[in-house]
């Protein structure tokens, strides 16, 4: 069973539907026991980092997610959920992340030249390092996925699982063993996105 963590940010309807579409048994939950008994955990997120991180901590689920990931349970962070896997974010201040993957979230505009629209919204191509993480096994170099973000992962080069180009190189995905994060939205990325979710379910 796939547990999608519901800590009060955003609507998880499409995310659940997309897991059901790839044949997974997915539940949206805010119950610690359900997270502990799940085979895999998905950490979604939209909005501002500071708010979301606080809600996740206040719900008591941050600790559970962290413990389960440290035990080796597959964890997939999506969009802001991916950002929270890192140590820190500098989105309007300085905020603590879960620290499961080294690195920090910084504004895209610090990476790319002026003149590019921010947020980075739309379909962009994925580029992979020589060693591809198994969740991307069915994704080809240059396949397109859907992004919506103004911040991205930095100082995480050793754990960058995919990049995309937008005036500069942006972090599109991170991975460290059983912990994976996608800056883009696999649940909004058509067949390519669904193949990533399916591969995650099969980990």
């Amino acid at each position, binding site marked *: 069973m796939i547990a999608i963590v519901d800590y009060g940010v955003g609507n998880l309807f*499409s995310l659940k*539907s997309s897991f*059901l579409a790839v044949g997974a048994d997915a539940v949206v939950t805010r119950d610690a026991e359900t997270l502990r008994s799940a085979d895999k955990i998905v950490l979604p997120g*939209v909005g*501002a980092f500071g708010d979301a991180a606080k809600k996740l901590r206040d719900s008591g689920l941050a600790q559970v997610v962290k413990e389960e990931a440290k035990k080796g349970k597959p964890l997939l962070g999506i969009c802001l959920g991916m950002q929270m896997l890192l140590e820190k974010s500098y989105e309007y201040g300085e905020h603590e992340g879960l620290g499961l993957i080294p690195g920090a979230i910084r504004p895209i505009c610090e990476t790319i030249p002026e003149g590019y629209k921010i947020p980075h*919204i739309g*379909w962009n191509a994925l580029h992979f390092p020589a060693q591809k993480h198994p969740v991307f096994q069915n994704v080809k170099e240059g396949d397109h996925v859907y992004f919506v973000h103004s911040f991205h992962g930095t100082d995480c080069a050793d754990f960058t699982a995919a990049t995309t180009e937008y005036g500069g190189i942006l972090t599109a995905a991170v991975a460290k063993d059983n912990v994976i994060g996608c800056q883009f939205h696999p649940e909004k990325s*058509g067949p390519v996105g669904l193949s990533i979710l399916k591969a995650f379910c099969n980990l």
Partner: protein
Amino acid sequence: MITKRIIPCLDVKNGRVVKGVNFLGLADVSSPVSLAKYYSDNGADELVFYDITASAEGRALFTDILCQVASTIFIPLTVGGGINTLEDFDRVLKCGADKVSVNSGAIRNPSLIGEAAKRYGDQCVVLSADVKRVDGVFRVFAKGGRENTGMEAIEWIKRGVDAGAGEVVVNSIDTDGVKNGFDIEMLQQVCNAVSVPVIASGGAGGIDHFTQLFRAIPTIDAGLAASIFHFGEVAISDLKNELYKQGIPVRR
């Protein structure tokens, strides 16, 4: 490189797609769910659902259909029509919409954009503007293009973006339905004025018009159309192949 988006728009009234469609191989051509799936499977980068219902029953039906559509397709979904309050945002977002487009509702109550952006994020709020030349000046029209608000369009759009709109759809009333090409002059001015994605709407009659659009305005992000897709005059796959051949980045 980020790709140019191709976006079909579906007008829905009382739970059915209006203006008809003309596809072969679709059992129910006015079912929003089967059409949405068709477009999603055939290369659309995003879908816009526009609720043109006036009654409460129609609205409830729309909301219902929306939930079905959102659980069927796995590309971004924008919803517009009848969005006047934060409760309307909430209603369609709960059904699985990713973005909400505001038009007349923002004209009546301009603070709606800022309030929605604050609650749901800029990326969620799309400002849709119906614009027409009146004595050589771009004016914003309300109520489906029937009423001249007297507001200067570029100023209005800038104001909306400053308030938090994360994208802008510009529908030129002058070129809409004429099928003679997008309104390059108007769209260029909007692109020069704002730094968020701009979506062109109104005037597409064939593949060449999209090529012209993306050539003439390299900073435009997307082209939206309805009838040419619904009537099968332009297949999205053909359109994208041609754009690709012309060196315009698209997702194929």
